């Protein structure tokens, strides 16, 4: 014979399990219903990839100190800053391949691109972009001019560009070429002619 107080405890435990189980099932159903409802209303991030396009990339060649236009195929988003970022990355991709026509540091990349006004762009680069750049007036000048000229050729309406390194202003790229100013793209266009 089971004592009476055991019977009561067992009954209470069974009741508690039943209530908890019912509560859990209801919670699960509510969560599923919430998810079904909320998915379509979540903001959708713009596609970074974009569509594949042929672009012109101005590539620096250290062997004969020249800048030459080359074709490249890249996925370009339509949004201007995302497009600018991919265009700049297309230039760096040329330099990061092996053998490279022009040396830049391993890990040189574009972290972010900011549009200050309709025609002014700030480009934030990785620390390796400056740390790995071989020091020298011409070598630094070729890196900067190829980036700026390729940018203006593929992202219309950019009049001024400034470079940051890891979110900070930096005096020079690698001891020589000025990184402090906002570069006037029309002046850089004239500078490029010396190397074409």
């Amino acid at each position, binding site marked *: 014979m089971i004592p009476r107080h055991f019977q009561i405890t067992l009954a209470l435990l069974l009741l508690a399990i039943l209530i908890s189980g019912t509560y859990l099932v209801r919670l699960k159903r509510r969560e599923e219903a919430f998810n079904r409802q909320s998915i379509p209303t979540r903001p959708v991030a713009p596609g970074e990839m974009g569509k594949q396009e042929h672009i012109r990339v101005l590539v620096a060649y250290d062997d004969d100190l020249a800048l030459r236009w080359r074709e490249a195929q890249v996925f370009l988003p339509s949004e201007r800053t995302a497009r600018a970022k991919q265009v700049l990355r297309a230039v760096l991709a040329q330099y990061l391949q092996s053998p490279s026509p022009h040396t830049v540091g391993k890990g040189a990349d574009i972290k972010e691109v900011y549009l200050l006004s309709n025609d002014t762009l700030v480009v934030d680069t990785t620390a390796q972009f400056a740390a790995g750049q071989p020091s020298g007036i011409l*070598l630094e000048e070729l890196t900067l001019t190829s980036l700026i000229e390729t940018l203006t050729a593929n992202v219309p309406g950019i009049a001024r560009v400034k470079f940051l390194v890891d979110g900070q202003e930096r005096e020079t790229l690698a001891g020589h070429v000025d990184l402090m100013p906002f570069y006037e793209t029309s002046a850089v266009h004239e500078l490029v002619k010396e190397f074409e």
Partner: protein
Amino acid sequence: MIDASHGGDDIGAILPGRVEEKELTLTLARELRKQLEARGVRARLLRESDTDLTLERRAEITNQEHAGLYVALHAGLPANGVRVYWSAMTAAKPKTRSLIPLWESAQTESLGRSRSMASAVADQVRKNDLSISLLTAPLRPLNNVVAPAIAVEWAPSPADLKPPQSAKVTARLTSAVAEAVARVRASSEGRP
């Protein structure tokens, strides 16, 4: 004002044979001063030893001393002789005109004279049988200097850096720069 670029922790470019740019620029600067003084041109070095000097300070001293000419000496790769630069002035111009030269565009008023001086130096270097390129560059601190400002970059081959060849090329280069400076100075003073 002669600026032996880099110095101290800032070694500059690494040249063939692990030669540091800062050492070479100091050697060139001392030799250039000697060559200028031999031609009656007073010259001062911005640094006399292996010391740190910021780019801003170099321009600041040059402006404070009212230098008649600023010559930055560099050494770099790739090797192809000598390259002479004047400022590219690629920075965005301020919207309002100021009576006092602005730091980032202090070079503007002297740009024409800087270009003439760079051409004169390039001509003379060519006469001394050295390969020469005449270029513009957004090189710091040229834009911050009020006086005419040029940069002379020696891009030596490995053979150029070995003695006695290194001493010969150094002498040919610095004498060419000194001769050009002395000639421009004489013509601006109306002397033959």
